[in-house]
């Protein structure tokens, strides 16, 4: 077992453990902390795949953006307005059916896909390629996403201001 393999299993264990905390913890803040470590583990896996830009983006968007927003929401509603927020188990039977279906599909996909195995080489620079692709082949999706985000921004500002008037 090489160092690369050891790192993979360490990261995988970290992701699984923190994902389990995220799912099973009753306290919403603990869920968020579990999610934080899961995001970090996934970023580590991206680095091992040579996708450095993707890993940094994962940290910036998910840890710096989405998780902060999530924590903000929980804190504003729980400690300040005194709303009790705990996760519980509801609708046991439908949940089991849906989860079993998803697991079956995933397992089938894992078995059926022709996995490509390549040697681990020196990581190549990905940023320039990603940038060029965004400006050429994927220009339309890129622009659509940016317009969507702008609309969300304007909408959020509008909702935020409505109370003031």
């Amino acid at each position, binding site marked *: 077992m090489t160092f690369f393999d050891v790192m993979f299993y360490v990261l995988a264990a970290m992701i699984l453990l923190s994902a389990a905390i995220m799912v099973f913890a009753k306290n919403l803040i*603990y869920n968020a*902390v579990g999610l934080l470590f899961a995001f970090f583990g996934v970023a580590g896996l991206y680095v091992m795949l040579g996708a450095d830009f993707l890993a940094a983006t994962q*940290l910036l968007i998910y*840890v*710096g*953006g989405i998780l902060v927003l999530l*924590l903000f929401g929980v804190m504003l509603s729980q400690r300040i307005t005194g709303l009790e927020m705990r996760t519980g188990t509801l609708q046991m039977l439908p949940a089991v059916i849906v989860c079993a279906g998803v697991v079956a599909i995933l397992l089938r996909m894992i078995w059926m896909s022709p996995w490509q195995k390549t040697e681990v080489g020196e990581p190549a620079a*990905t*940023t320039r390629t990603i940038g060029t692709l965004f400006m050429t082949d994927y220009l339309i999706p890129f622009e659509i996403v940016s317009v969507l985000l702008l609309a969300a921004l304007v909408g959020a500002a509008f909702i935020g201001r409505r109370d003031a008037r």
Partner: protein
Amino acid sequence: MRELIDALLHSETFFAKLSPTLLTLIFMALGALLIVLVLALNALIAVYAERKVSAWMQERLGPMEVGPRGILQTLADTVKLLVKEDIIPAAADKRLHWLAPFLAFVAPCAAFAALPYARNFVFANFDIGVFYVTAITSLSVIALLLAGWASNNKWALLGGMRAAAQIVSYEIPAGLAILTIVMQVGSLNFNDISLAQDGGIHHWLIWRYFPFNLIAFLVFYLATLAECNRTPFDLPEAESELVAGFHTEYSGFKWSIFMLSEYAEMLLVALVGAALFLGGWSSPIPGFLNTGAWGVLWFGLKGVVLILTHMWLRWTLPRLRVDQLMHLSWKVLTPFSFACIVGVGLWMLA
């Protein structure tokens, strides 16, 4: 660092007998240890400097008792902090209360790995260094939020929320100002950016595309000052309203870790500013001590000057109100940084 490891592996010393993985691991551990030691030393010196600077600005003497001119004062304070009782409030969330200070310190520590300390010397020379630093420092927001929440204290919670809102808002102008530089150099690698401004003070990026880069530097400076929660942007720990903000319920060792990470963050933003706008490791005078390890001196010196301006501002300016803070970020700094990007972009096309 990889070059160094390769050189050792092919040398005649006993290092060549070790496996490359082991040697890499040893170097990684040594590098991390070095960073932590430098950050601890930085906090020791910076706290003393801050007290002396404030004393000088207020016509006092400052610490004078411990050692000649009080130079050992922070060392004595550190010993005091380490032996102090570690108080955890009964109603606090103990695990998160414990976790938060360490998360707060990890963020700036991890970022130091990517900085260019001298010509061809970085701990981790990656292609996306600048982007990595902006991404990894967002971890400190989570740490402050968790510290505020876990303390189970109104002031701590409000302080944590203020800190998070402030850092998230000011990350945007800071990121856009960095983008101005990245765009003209065409690289996210810190060493490429430093190399682009090698050869004396007139090559520094702050003077290029005048006045756009100068404005971008000012935007970056103010935004990163706010991200460090320093006066005039120290609302998260405004003592007259919030006791001490997110670290109200921390004491002893854990409190000192928060202080350590605050000073580490100051050093980090000062060094990033120096690397992006002020020539990084290159000497201000063309050809004067502009080789190899002298880079560490120049880089450190530029960082120290920027930190001294942080202190100067802290003891000069009054604190902003929350609405003024948000106004400055969204309605002043963000439009200006966009103007810099557009201006430099058009200039590059022309």
